[in-house]
């Protein structure tokens, strides 16, 4: 197997994720796209780990999975709060950071 | 003792203010007195340790790094905790260690609105750690971290304690410098990947060790790559300097910043940029520096003229002083652009002189604002009548700033002009001579705007609106204490420039030397056929690499 198979696939998934993050208005969908990006990164980590014959890649992938889980938890909690206050999860409406 | 000197001495100097800041956080807000004492104490302690340490500095080998500490730090990217100083960092560290306590003394009883001494002093101390750290760091990542630490306290200082437009100014300052340093980081990374540490005697190929990078590790990088990498650093440091046309954050930041903020900004922060050029950009990439030198020189002289003309258009005194910084830093950059030891020496001197003089001018402007509640020059006048000592000090600083011989400013300005008559041989002489003439014209304009300012503010009779103002008093005690050292130093350095050159000269020569197995970069810079020389050097090094 070529290393590149995995890397390119990962790059494609990553880019699709980027598109999703930018194009989606629904907060839940944006979060999903972020998951996509994180998984693409995981593929990379594991692929490189196998390539250089080390376990470190997997260890980091595990960490990423953990962090991703935490991120989804907090992210959904924020969306929930947002929904409660605004009756919408449309990110387009969120511009409270406007200076 | 050896342990102190060559081990944790520099670390202590760098982090004592940070410790002070931590202690401050633990003291409740209402204990103002203890807050101030702790802040002043820790900055003075840092200064004392610093002076004690630096008194062991061996000027006879000022070109070498001294008090070096070298410990593993982030092993995965081979970044190490390296600190050390040579003759270039020495004066700048001393300047920082001097200015911060003076600033604390100055604001001891008058914190700018909205007061809050606790946060103010904390930020000041963090700022000090960042500034000193930048000057002692000898590892690019460490350097970068300190370089960035400086940013936040300053941002808050302008944004919280600033004038009316403070939010705009602070955000502009922040974004501008952040943008520059992002590009700079990329350049650092690129150098990390491209340089070969083994050429400089290291075991590892990839390194952030500044000693190795400025000691020939970069000699094998292709010229195009060097030029690109330099461009990134150029932006990063150029914004900080600030060079024309990246200067527009400066007048806003200065105008809005509280007095102490302005002083630190002028005295030390701007020097981070020029120090970066002298310490990082030029010695690490001498070839790219030679390629960029005409551009740097051009922007420098444009800055000189442009800054001066900008000054002539100002109505606000503080803004005028801010603009004059653009012009003065132009002289510093011109000195660096010549790529000769003479010019770089002038630049280092110029940095210190500008720090002292412009810092002092900002102090004066701040105190005048306190008294007159405005710095609108058309409303001021007769300072010499109402507060004669202050008027005299203003006149003195104006003279120093316009480069009067016998005061510190001259030795930064005139040698820079002199050096650009005969830049490094690799550079085009005619171009630099043209720069010299333009820079010389700049000195006239400098005299013009500074004297004009002096006339407007100090001469003449007191204005009616301020004639009986009870606020207008002559120099007060805390002002004396915080100003006297600066004033004395301006005179001392003016009469005795050797004090500085003793330290800087060997270090500057060392920094331009950039040795390698195939001859030093200085030789190539000094040769008429410099580009070929660099090419041959590279080819030779690559061959040995191949073996």
């Amino acid at each position, binding site marked *: 197997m070529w290393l590149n198979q995995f890397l390119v696939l990962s790059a494609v998934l990553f880019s699709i994720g980027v598109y999703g993050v930018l194009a989606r208005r629904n907060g839940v969908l944006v979060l999903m796209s972020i998951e996509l990006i994180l998984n693409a990164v995981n593929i990379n980590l594991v692929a490189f780990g196998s390539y250089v014959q080390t376990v470190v890649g997997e260890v980091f992938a595990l960490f990423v999975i953990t962090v991703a889980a935490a991120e989804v938890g907090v992210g959904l909690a924020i969306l929930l709060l947002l929904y409660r206050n605004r009756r919408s999860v449309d990110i387009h409406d969120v511009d409270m950071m406007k200076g | 003792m050896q342990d102190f000197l060559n081990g944790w001495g520099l670390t202590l100097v760098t982090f004592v203010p940070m410790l002070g800041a931590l202690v401050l956080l633990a003291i409740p807000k209402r204990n103002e007195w203890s807050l101030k004492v702790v802040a002043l104490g820790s900055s003075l302690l840092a200064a004392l340790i610093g002076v004690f340490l630096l008194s062991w500095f061996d000027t006879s080998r000022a070109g070498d790094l001294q008090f070096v500490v070298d410990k593993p730090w982030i092993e995965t990217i081979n970044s190490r905790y390296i600190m050390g100083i040579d003759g270039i960092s020495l004066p700048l560290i001393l300047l920082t260690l001097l200015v911060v306590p003076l600033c604390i003394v100055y604001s001891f009883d008058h914190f700018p609105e909205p007061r809050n001494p606790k946060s103010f002093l904390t930020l000041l101390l963090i700022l000090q750690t960042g500034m000193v750290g930048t000057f002692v760091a000898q590892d690019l990542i460490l350097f970068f971290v300190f370089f960035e630490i400086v940013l936040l306290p300053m941002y808050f200082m302008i944004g919280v304690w600033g004038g009316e437009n403070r939010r705009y100014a602070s955000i502009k300052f922040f974004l501008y410098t952040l943008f520059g340093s992002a590009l700079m980081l990329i350049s650092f990374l690129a150098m990390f990947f491209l340089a070969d540490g083994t050429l400089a005697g290291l075991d590892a190929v990839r390194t952030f060790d500044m000693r190795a990078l400025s000691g020939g590790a970069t000699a094998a990088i292709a010229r195009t790559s060097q030029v690109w990498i330099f461009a990134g650093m150029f932006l990063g440091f150029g914004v900080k300097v600030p060079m024309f046309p990246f200067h527009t954050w400066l007048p806003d930041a200065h105008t809005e910043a509280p007095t102490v903020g302005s002083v630190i900004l002028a005295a030390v922060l701007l020097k981070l940029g020029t120090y970066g050029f002298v310490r990082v950009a030029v010695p690490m990439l001498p070839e790219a520096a030679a390629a960029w030198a005409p551009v740097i020189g051009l922007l420098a002289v444009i800055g000189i003229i442009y800054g001066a003309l*900008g*000054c002539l258009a100002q109505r606000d005194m503080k803004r005028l002083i801010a603009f004059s910084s653009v012009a003065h830093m132009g002289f510093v950059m011109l000195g660096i652009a010549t790529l000769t030891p003479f010019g770089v020496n002038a630049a280092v001197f110029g940095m210190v002189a500008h720090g002292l003089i412009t810092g002092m001018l900002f102090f004066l402007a701040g105190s005048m604002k306190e008294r007159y509640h405005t710095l609108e020059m058309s409303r001021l006048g007769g300072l010499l009548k109402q507060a004669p000592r202050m008027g005299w000090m203003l006149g003195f600083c104006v003279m120093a700033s316009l480069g009067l011989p016998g005061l510190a400013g001259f030795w930064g300005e005139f040698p820079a002009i002199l050096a650009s008559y005969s830049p490094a041989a690799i550079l085009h002489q005619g171009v630099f001579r043209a720069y010299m003439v333009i820079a010389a014209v700049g000195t006239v304009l400098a005299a013009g705007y500074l004297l004009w300012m002096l006339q407007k503010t100090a001469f003449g009779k007191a204005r009616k609106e301020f004639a009986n103002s009870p606020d207008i008093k002559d120099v007060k005690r805390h002002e004396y204490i915080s100003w006297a050292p600066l004033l004395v130093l301006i005179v001392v350095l003016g009469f005795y420039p050797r004090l500085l050159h003793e330290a800087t000269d060997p270090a500057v020569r060392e920094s331009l030397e950039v040795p390698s197995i195939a001859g030093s970069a200085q030789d190539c810079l000094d040769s008429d056929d410099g580009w070929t020389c660099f090419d041959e050097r590279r080819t030779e090094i690559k061959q040995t690499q191949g073996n």
Partner: protein
Amino acid sequence: MGLLGAFATTPAVFAAEAGAEVVKAGGWFLANAWLIPLIPAASFLIILLFGKRMPRGGSEVGITAVAASFVLGLLTLVQWIGAVNAAGDAAVSPAISKWTWWISGGTSFTIGTLVDGLAVALIFVVTLVSLLVHIYSTDYVAGDVRYTHFFAFLSLFTASMLFFVLSENTIQMILGWEMVGVCSFVLIGHWWEEKANSNAALKAFLTNRVGDIGLLIGMAILFFAADSFSVVKINSLAAEGSIAHGLLLAASLCLMAAVMSKSGQFFLHTWLPDAMAGPTPVSALIHAATMVVAGVYMVARLFAVFFEGLAIAGSSVNALAIMGGITTLVGASLAFVQTDIKRVLAYSTISQLGYMVLALGVGAWTAAVFHLFTHAFFKACLFLGSGSVSHAVHSFDMKKDMGGLRKHMPHTFRTFVIASLALAGLAPLAGFWSKDEILAGTGGWGAFGGTGGNGAYTFVLFMAMLTAALTAAYMTRCVYLTFFGTYRGHGHPHESGRRITVPLWILAVFAVGAGWTNLPKGFQIVPKGWREQFGHYVEPRAAEGFYFPHIAHATPSWTLAAFSTLVVLFGLGAAYYYYFVKVRALGGSATELPNGLTSRFRIARLGHRLLARKYYLDHLYTDILAKGTAGPVARGAYWLNQRGIDEVVNQAGRKAVSAGHVLYDKIDQKVVDGVVNATGRASHGAGEEIRRMQTGKVQQYAGVMFVVAALIAVVLILVL
């Protein structure tokens, strides 16, 4: 080795190239001349710090210090004369003491003193005039609010000027040059409460700064050409032709710009008349006797550079001579139309400085330095005299507030007249001898049977002759308006006190006798040992590899002296006739003839009727010469001066300011800054711009971030 070890090196008395004909000048005073400027410098600090608490406000310190310097200077002078005498026919190399000041990039900057005849002569002039001015000032500025400060800066000025004069290298010259400029700035603006005074101070400083560009660049060129800052080294290399002629030419042209501003040469001279806003003693010391001759001194100091650079030898015209020639004429003609007595003297100073520069331009080195020497005394005397007058009448306006003062102020009157005659150049007063040597030095006088000189500068000779006539005329006018006729001012003028008159008399004595130090070679009446003594001790003998060029000396002739005296008498007589006869006939309070030049001029234009007039000579003298010069020509020149050249200067300043405004308002704030805030123009003030950039839309931020990251990656790919 610590940071503080600079002065550890011992002073070394420097020997010039040890040729057979060069001997070293030695002696304690010659080697320790650094004390001479150091004493007034110390006095400056003492007065500044403690002066207010002293019984006489610090003036006593100043006077003591300058007196000490004067004595030291005298002793140095004596030792120098001894050294020259001991050397016999050999050339004497200057006594040099120097220390390394600092080192940068392998170049060492030294500081030290160079004592030779030129320096000694200048030290004598500076310390003597300064001492007299100090004494004079204790009366003149008595009761002034900034009495102490005034003396402090007089001391500083004296120190700076002496430092400049004793410069061992060009860096020191620049230092001294700038320092005297600052002192001049401070002292012109002494009464800075008035806007006009601070304006004059600013103008003086800025005009000088313009010239300083030339100084900085010229010195830079010389430094790199000679690889040294040393005056001796630069001069010897230039004299032996080791430096490319092009470089020398460029350097001397650049330095000429500096001379132009500092020594008030055409067309950067306009600051000098304005500088009269300062107190009169300052005008006497700084703007007549010493500081303004700094430019002349610099040319004399680096004469080899100019001599070779401008190819003075064997030529009949060069930039320096022309500059001096034009200046001397312009100054003299402008002096005619002034009503302010100090301005008359200021223009006269410009004219005389032009004379000196002209002399240097034709290679008459000794004559120029000699004229500098004599001029210092009689011009200082004139200025102090005018100060004494204004002290009595509280005004400087000759037409409105003076007249008839000879009865009220006999001492002032006598000294003023002596000095005026000296300035006019009547034998045997000082001005005659120095002026005559300059005329001889032009070498352009073949018709009068002289020989020698560096070239045939006939045109320059013509200008100098014309100036001599004009000088005699305007001084006559000045004397008449001030001291003759009837008193037109207010109150009862009375003679000034002794602290004023004694310095006047001392200077008057020098105005008479200073010229006898250099009686011409052909002046057979006196014994040989009295002739050309000044030149003998001041001018370095040219020797191989020496720091002085081989200049050719002219032999003065009796015919030339007689002719120039005639010219002076002619000018004097014409003015005398006009004022003392014609104007006086109208009554004591008349100052000019009432029937104006316009009617006369119409007659003159008609031409043929002019010949028929009874007062043909009268017309010629009064209308065409005196009044014509004082009228349309001078007025025109003055107009040109004020509106033309001065306007250019002022306009340049104003234009710079407006350029600054345009640049700042239009470009800096709009373009450069605008690029930064490119997301939109501010509609609600500048803060709004950044606000708009911050849309608060997270996704936009994210998008920008991704795109930028991709771009950065592209850059990295390209680089790596």
